[in-house]
């Protein structure tokens, strides 16, 4: 189940979609809108997406996570538009026979999603300032298939 949506993310539905009698472990990650980053106070966030490519990129991620980890089911959802404090911006969930693989696959999936899915975040601060956030530095764990493109372009 892959979703790009302007509506609130239903993490219960997403999690139920990966449950299976073959699975002993399910790991869900939620990325939520945090109020403070150091001293800077966020009022709300705006996410812009390139919808067709974002959906295609998430489908590629599903194929990659299935190829690299022993996962049974995978689901992910990213929201875009205006988000309030505490809202869920992204959810990824995997099921696996054992928990080590579920944690590793879930971590790989969110790390790689953040570096490869064409979505951008604009912070609107409580003091009225706004800015497009820079990309996260790429960590060694984020072995993206198109990593040559990404790694060479990314600030470190």
């Amino acid at each position, binding site marked *: 189940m892959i979703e790009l949506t302007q509506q609130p993310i239903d993490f219960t539905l997403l999690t139920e979609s990966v449950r299976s009698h073959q699975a002993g472990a399910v790991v869900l990650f939620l990325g939520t809108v945090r109020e403070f980053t150091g001293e800077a106070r966020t009022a709300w966030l705006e996410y812009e997406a390139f919808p067709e490519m974002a959906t295609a990129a998430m489908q590629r991620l599903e194929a990659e996570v299935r190829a690299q980890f022993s996962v049974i089911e995978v689901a992910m959802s990213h929201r875009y538009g205006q988000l309030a404090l505490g809202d869920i911006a992204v959810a990824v969930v995997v099921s696996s026979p054992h928990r080590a693989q579920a944690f590793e696959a879930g971590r790989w999936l969110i790390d790689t999603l953040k570096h490869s899915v064409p979505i951008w975040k604009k912070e609107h601060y409580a003091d009225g300032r706004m800015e497009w956030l820079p990309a996260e530095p790429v960590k060694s764990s984020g072995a993206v298939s198109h990593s040559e493109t990404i790694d060479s372009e*990314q600030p470190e």
Partner: protein
Amino acid sequence: MKLSILLFSAAREIAGCESFELHLPEAATVAQARVALLQSLPALATRTGTLLWAVNHDYASDDRVLQETDVVACFPPVSGG
């Protein structure tokens, strides 16, 4: 050939439009499109970091050859999640 470049995020805001039309030689590469875009919109070079390119909804390197039917997009490094 004529190519319409889709722009997103800070690139879209700086250009002031969601897509920008380029006139390029046949079989031009992404590198040539980049040069042409930055000549037309120099503010993109000074006010964004490195720009990424995508062709038909996948990332493309500088040596990728473009066709008139391609969906081409240009945007800053992604920051979702």
